[in-house]
């Protein structure tokens, strides 16, 4: 289980990393936490000729409050997300999810940027970023662009990221005070990807749901954003029939593959159940409900 031969690069700055990415194109790969990439390299499912290790770039780490947006550096680890006071206060769905991602050792290495850039439908952060309507900052030697998480994912391991681009930060519109949010994930055991999972954010005012977003993990080729599920609770008091309708819409949007985690029917039903649980939990945390 030794990876193929590659050349190792350890840039100290984003500029150096971008120059290397520009130079090597499709032969180069970014190494962040390595906890998706290295297992793939051990299986020789990935054999990059050049590995560009971004762990020495201090500028890629850290979580900042910029008022209307929370910025998380791509190199920030899940362990850092899990223990962030800022996120616990302003965007608690992220630490809630981090606690359900892998295990302590993996969380010490695995990064937010890697989780979002990887393109594996089993990754948990993409659905959450879609629910939060986050955007990703992508940099290359040609410049910088922002892309919405909702537009980023194209298929299994295919994303809008170009070979010469580095995801440098995740930008999350600061959730308004009183927004309720929850990430509910069913998995076989610690350190397993989701059988199905749902991310929900919702706002309540005078007992009515004024806004909501629902996104699903691992029940399609990418994370899914079933708009009909969110529509089913908007404008309602989020009573049992609205929750049922949202769960039905989430199930209708789900297209899981049959695998060790279960049959299509089971995983679809779990997408509905996680949607239900996440709505109920988010509602209990929302102000004005």
């Amino acid at each position: 289980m030794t990876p193929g031969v590659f050349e190792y690069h350890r840039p100290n700055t984003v500029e150096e990393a971008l120059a290397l990415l520009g130079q090597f194109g499709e032969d180069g790969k970014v190494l962040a936490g390595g906890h998706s990439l290295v297992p793939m390299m051990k299986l020789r499912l990935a054999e990059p000729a050049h590995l560009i290790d971004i762990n020495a770039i201090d500028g890629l780490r850290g979580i900042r409050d910029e008022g209307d947006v929370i910025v998380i550096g791509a190199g920030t680890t899940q362990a850092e997300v899990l223990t962030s006071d800022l996120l616990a206060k302003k965007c608690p769905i992220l630490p809630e999810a981090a606690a359900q991602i892998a295990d302590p050792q993996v969380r010490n290495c695995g990064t937010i940027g890697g989780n979002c850039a990887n393109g594996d439908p089993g990754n948990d952060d993409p659905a959450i970023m879609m629910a939060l309507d986050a955007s990703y900052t992508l940099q290359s030697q040609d410049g910088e662009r922002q892309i919405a998480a909702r537009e980023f994912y194209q298929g299994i391991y295919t994303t809008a990221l170009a070979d010469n681009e580095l995801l440098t930060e995740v930008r999350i519109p600061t959730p308004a005070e009183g927004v309720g949010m929850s990430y509910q994930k069913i998995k076989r055991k610690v350190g397993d990807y989701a059988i199905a999972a749902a991310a929900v954010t919702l706002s309540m005012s005078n007992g009515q749901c004024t806004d909501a977003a629902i996104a699903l993990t691992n029940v399609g080729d990418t994370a899914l954003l079933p708009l009909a599920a969110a529509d089913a609770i908007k404008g309602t008091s989020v009573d049992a029939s609205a929750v049922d309708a949202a769960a039905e819409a989430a199930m209708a949007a789900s297209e899981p593959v049959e695998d060790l985690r279960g049959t299509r029917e089971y995983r679809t039903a779990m997408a509905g159940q996680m949607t239900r649980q996440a709505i109920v939990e988010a509602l209990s945390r929302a102000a004005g409900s």
Partner: protein
Amino acid sequence: MSSQKISLTINGESVEAEVEPRTLLIHFLREELNLTGSHIGCETSHCGACTVDLNGKSVKSCTVFAVQANGGELVTIEGLANGTEMHPLQEGFYEAHGLQCGYCTPGMLIRAYRLLQENPDPSDDEIRVGISGNLCRCTGYQNIVEAIRYAADKINQAEGAD
């Protein structure tokens, strides 16, 4: 393929070596340095048998390249005892029967070593979450939790006595 020079501290001693970039840290430890205490229990980064302490954090050494440890500080199971005196964790595993076949034990110990620094007085639940990246196929975990509890109590008592 060009090798790269690395230097790091392993269990308090400076080590310099030439490694191929693709050499995993676990292979470097076991095959180049003959530090065979850290085990390889899986091919998918799941089992935690290879856990080492790198720069104050528990990591799976099968999923880190040796070149990435350049300049780092590493503690492996070989560095846990103080000469012939067992670390309280080793004593705990011995006293509380925290092992059967022993395959998972080095990884468990080195993970628990960091866990007790992060959280010196963990509840049983916190211990279980703390070692959730380490699989044991023998014990059912109960005695491992007790062994870690034993060590926490012993360390805390010793510190209380100071």
